[in-house]
């Protein structure tokens, strides 16, 4: 393993050959798209950047208290689909999202929906840790403050403490809450970002390759944290590391060229994938 980064031993950028691959895509997603009592549902989602289609006809359920991982080669649309779930794609001007995405039954793309409270209910953790250039306390307190979640200052302090505890960071920072958030190590910063997301009491936490900038120990701590958090939150994690998806998630969804090829229980999918393309991807073969 190289220092500082977890190296996927078998995975090299698979050259995507759209002409060959398109022919092999299944007509419909293979596997269990639906779950009972889903928290979020997506039906026939399509995303275009200008005239380029990034995601085509993706339907998927996200269940409560589950960890589901999105895997697939670069450019397959997994991050794009992730960002549809909390409407972060709104910030990109050329992006058009169509289809039906619901959170607890409510359409999140309805014209009267305000994205601000949506993003409090569907939190996000990014690839490179991006704490605010403020103190550790202010980082975590910012969300509750702007959403008016705390009754008073004391309550706010409690929220911050609990969020940091759940993120496994409290013991390391409780005596230096006024230090700048950017002064922490990479792994700590990412946990701070997770605490920041937790502080606004979301139902779902979206994670876009949260460990790709971290060393193996920090990665392991975050994976442990994901496991602990999964009892309360639904977690959707996009990852380039097959082994991470295998370790961390209960369900795995394989994307390719903008389509959802296969979804299934992680242990089944990694032992016996049903579609040839899934098999080729997870064993590291040319498609």
């Amino acid at each position, binding site marked *: 393993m190289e220092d500082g980064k977890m190296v996927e031993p078998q995975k090299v950028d698979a050259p995507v050959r759209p002409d060959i691959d398109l022919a092999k895509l299944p007509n419909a997603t293979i596997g269990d798209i639906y779950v009972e009592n889903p928290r979020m549902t997506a039906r026939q989602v399509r995303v275009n950047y200008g005239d380029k289609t990034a995601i085509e006809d993706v339907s998927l359920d996200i269940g409560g208290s589950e960890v589901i991982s999105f895997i697939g080669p670069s450019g397959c649309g997994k991050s794009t689909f992730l960002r549809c779930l909390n409407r972060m794609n709104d910030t990109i001007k050329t992006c058009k999202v169509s289809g039906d995405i619901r959170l607890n039954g409510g359409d999140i793309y309805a014209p009267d929906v305000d994205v601000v409270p*949506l993003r409090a209910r569907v939190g996000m953790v990014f690839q490179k840790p991006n704490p605010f250039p403020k103190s550790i306390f202010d980082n975590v307190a*910012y969300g509750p403050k702007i959403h008016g979640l705390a009754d008073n200052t004391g309550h706010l302090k409690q929220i911050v403490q609990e969020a940091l505890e759940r993120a496994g960071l409290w013991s390391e920072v409780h005596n230096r809450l006024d230090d700048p958030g950017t002064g922490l190590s990479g792994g700590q910063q990412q946990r701070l970002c997770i605490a920041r997301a937790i502080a606004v009491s979301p139902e779902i936490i979206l994670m876009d390759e949260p460990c790709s900038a971290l060393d193996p120990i920090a990665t392991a701590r975050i994976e442990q944290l994901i496991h602990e958090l999964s009892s309360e939150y639904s977690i959707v994690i996009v990852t380039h590391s097959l082994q991470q998806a295998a370790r961390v998630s209960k369900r795995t969804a394989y994307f390719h060229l903008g389509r959802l090829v296969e979804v299934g229980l992680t242990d089944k999918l990694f032992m016996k994938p049903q579609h040839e393309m899934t098999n080729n991807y997870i064993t590291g073969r040319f498609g």
Partner: protein
Amino acid sequence: MIDTPKGLVSPTTATERVAASMAKRKKSERNFQLLGRSAIAVALTFLVVLFFSIFSKGLPGFFQYYVEIEVEIDREKLDPTGDLSLQSLYDGDARGVIRSALYAAVDAEGRKNKRAAGKLISAGAEQRLRELVYDDPSLMDTTQTLRFALDDDVDSFLRGFIKRETPEKDRRISDKMVEYIDRLQSDGKIVYAFSDYLIFGSASRNPEMAGIYGAFIGSILTLSVCLVLAFPIGVATAIYLEEIAPKNRITEIIEININNLAAVPSVVFGILGLAVFIGIFGMPRSIPLIGGVVLALMTLPTIIISSRAAIRAVPPSVREAALGVGASQVQTIFHHVIPLAMPGMLTGTIIGMAQALGETAPLLMIGMVAFIVDVPGGVTDPGTVLPVQIFMWADFAERMFVQKTSAAIIVLLAFLITMNAAAIIVRKKLERRW
């Protein structure tokens, strides 16, 4: 013919060739460094010469010659009505009081001699006496040793610019005056001291009384107006263009125009101010308000462009983090983007201000070249600014103005350096790591 190899060379060949090329590369490297160093040396030389010439000419401008004489502060003469009112003081004969003291100091007898003696002292001496007595009436009916400025010709003579050897008919100072000057000097009554006139005096045709105070206040007022207008508008425009405006043709056109405005000669803004504010709106000329508006128009493009660059430099990850936690666009801008962009915005603003401080042409167009004696009390009082004052003084013939002009330039430079230092301090304080 040497066979040129195709494609990558072997490491051994590469090592050889790299070593062989080193001599030539090192030589061009050395030449470049030499060029750079000599350029720096030339620049430093020029800098030294510049500062030397400014300071050598300017420092003496901070000083002028005074005479200290015993004055009988005669109440009756100074304050005829006895109520110490300004009117009374002006009606009184302060000049006479001073003249008597002067005649006594040089033993002047006869009208001609007395006239010569009278020419020694500055015309502003009597005002000085009036102010003195007005501020401190207890001085009445006492005899005090007071210090008065000498006339600018005497000052020039004492500095050596008017030469003793020149024949009297070509000299601005008569022989009798020279005799009196020598007398006063041998009595130790002539003093070379820090010129309070320079700093606290206002515009005057008499060089010994001329000062920059009025222009200084005028500059401050004008710059204040400029800052109050340009900073908020410039920053808000930058925020709008960067964060909120949709990327379409109209926005593009606005951007192009702003960039072009930055290159427009400043005189044009003066003409604009003249035509619009003074011509159409009929506002008075030469007031800091108009000057400030004109300078604001001129500085806006600078502030907008540098603010936009500062906003663009804020990494998108900060924005994404804020949006991801549920901040609205406005909250993202004001809580996250602006604090991080602030150092850059402030730096751009202060650079713009420093530029505005030194602007002369547009202010000339709106008439701030007028001869204003009084210190402007507010933005609607007529005034002038430092660079214009310097410009005017450079025109005047009297020798003493040369020194004062250079001294004023030093003051202006000090102002500029202070502003830039403030920029650096502010930027350092506000810099945050992200």
